[in-house]
């Protein structure tokens, strides 16, 4: 239905025009707004990073401190997305296929890390896994704290990307495999997993992008000690010391990484909509975005009825 609406030729006569002004003016306003709010500041950033030429840029990015922070950021983010992919898939499966009391509450709470300010996340994690931990687990100001903070803020990504694919999946395939004697693990490996792969990949890419740039939740919990300084914290400390070019250079690296991740997600979605594994996933840009307003669990129950 979405493809139908999008493919329909929309002439300027038949299509609705923006109220009050023509399409051209509307388009101009949108481009101007985005340029002023988003593009101009980013251009200033790139300009500053190249102030001393490409060689200075390279020196800044490869300085021992900058390099260490980038390495730490990438390694922590990779660990985080692997753990996320594992637990995210399990949680999505529970929310779609399982029935347990309180399921709708759990489904709603998954988005909490998005709604909760990151600085509050930091404080909350210190309270539980810091010096006064009721469990006696004190990981504050360590590298483990970075991983836990990133796990907290990226929790919804994989869950929300995998849920719709699980709902749309044809269960007859699984039943056929089961009746042919396949074990639960074989069914997961050969049938469920390949079907979930596009969502899982997109969710992981988005979680990775978020983890690379995360600041607030890491700041208080992991601190800015030399051995726990992720790139965003490094950038902030460079700004405080008046090292604008150094800060800008590392920022441009993060910016490029974010753009690559967004490009990757677009490719994954285009690929998956072409292969019709998930008819809805191709429409409307970043549909793997958590909090996208879909009530996945209820749709799942409809599927079971059918």
């Amino acid at each position, binding site marked *: 239905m*979405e493809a139908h*609406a999008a493919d329909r030729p*929309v002439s300027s006569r*038949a299509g*609705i*025009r*923006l109220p009050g002004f023509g399409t051209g003016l*509307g388009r101009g306003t*949108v*481009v101007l707004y*985005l340029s002023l*709010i*988003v*593009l*101009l*500041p*980013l251009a*200033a*950033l790139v300009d500053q990073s190249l102030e001393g030429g490409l060689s200075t840029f390279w020196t800044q990015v490869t300085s021992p401190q900058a390099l260490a922070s980038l390495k730490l950021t990438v390694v922590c983010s990779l660990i985080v997305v692997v753990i996320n992919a594992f637990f995210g898939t*399990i949680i999505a499966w529970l929310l779609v296929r*399982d029935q*347990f009391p309180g399921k709708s509450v*759990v489904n*709603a709470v*998954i*988005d*909490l890390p*998005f*709604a909760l*300010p*990151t*600085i*509050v*996340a930091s*404080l*909350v994690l210190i*309270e539980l896994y810091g010096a006064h931990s009721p469990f006696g687990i004190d990981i504050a100001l360590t590298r483990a704290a970075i991983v836990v903070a990133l*796990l907290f803020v990226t929790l919804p990504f994989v869950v929300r990307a995998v849920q719709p694919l699980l709902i749309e999946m044809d269960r007859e395939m699984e039943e056929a495999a089961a009746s042919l004697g396949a074990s*639960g693990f074989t069914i997961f490996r050969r049938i469920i997993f390949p079907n979930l792969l596009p969502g899982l990949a997109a969710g992981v890419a*988005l979680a990775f*992008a978020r983890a690379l*740039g*995360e*600041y*607030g939740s890491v700041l208080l919990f992991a601190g800015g000690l030399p051995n726990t300084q992720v790139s*965003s*914290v490094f950038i902030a400390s460079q*700004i405080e010391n008046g090292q*604008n070019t150094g800060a800008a250079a590392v*920022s441009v690296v993060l910016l490029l990484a*974010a*753009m690559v991740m*967004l490009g990757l997600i677009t490719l994954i979605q285009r690929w998956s909509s072409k292969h019709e594994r998930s008819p809805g996933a191709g*429409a*409307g*840009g*970043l549909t793997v*975005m958590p909090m996208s*307003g879909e*009530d996945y669990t209820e749709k799942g129950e409809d599927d079971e009825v059918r």
Partner: protein
Amino acid sequence: MRSASSTRSRWGLRALGLGYLTLLLLAPLVAIFYKTFEHGLAPPLDAITSPDGLHALKLSLLMVAIAVPLNTIFGVGCALLLVRHKWKGNAVIDAVINLPFAISPVVIGLSLFLLYGTKGWLGPTLAENGIEILFSVPGMVLASIFVSVPFVVRETVPVLQEIGTEQEQAASTLGANAWQTFRRITLPSIRWGVAYGVVLSTARVLGEFGAVSIVSGSRSGETETLPLFVKKAFDNFEFPAAYGASVLLAVLALSTLLAMNVLKRKEDA
């Protein structure tokens, strides 16, 4: 039909998934509420109702009051253009709109800091005309707008695609002008999608820390939003204030989740 081993693995998965959620989400949330009200209501309440606390709350609400309406108008207009008017540049617009999702808040803050700084492209000219952006409210507003650009667009686009153009075309055939068609036909069909985007934008603006902290200078009672207030209170070992403001923000976050669930149901109905 289910065998004993599949029941066992089902319980195993439940224990794993729900245990993980309890440790990562639930326990920290309970802990912060417990810690805040450990010594009764008074200490956190006093801290929030201090002049600095109240000012931070007011400033946070001001950010929402400016950034969210602007991005809502922009978002609806932009979504209409993206869905209803095919254009080569749409793919670029779409990509730029997604950027604020993926960019680090610190990078956003630094970009504004450089653009409006004393050596930036716009800073000196604006300063000559007596307009201060950095370390004052306008800079914080710009940061808030930047981080919340995508939400309304992203929530409105799929709804617009789903409703199609038949009713809009019927209305214009019957002689309605563009504004009437938009107000009577399009807007009522997309309103819950837009409202959802508004809720997400509000939550993001209220909670924004990184970008705002870099452009604000974080002066108590002047350029300090609630998240900045939390950070400063924590750094100064004023824990009742830090926890009190945190709980206030957490309650706002939980209200966001509630609003989202209500809107989801309206949208489905």
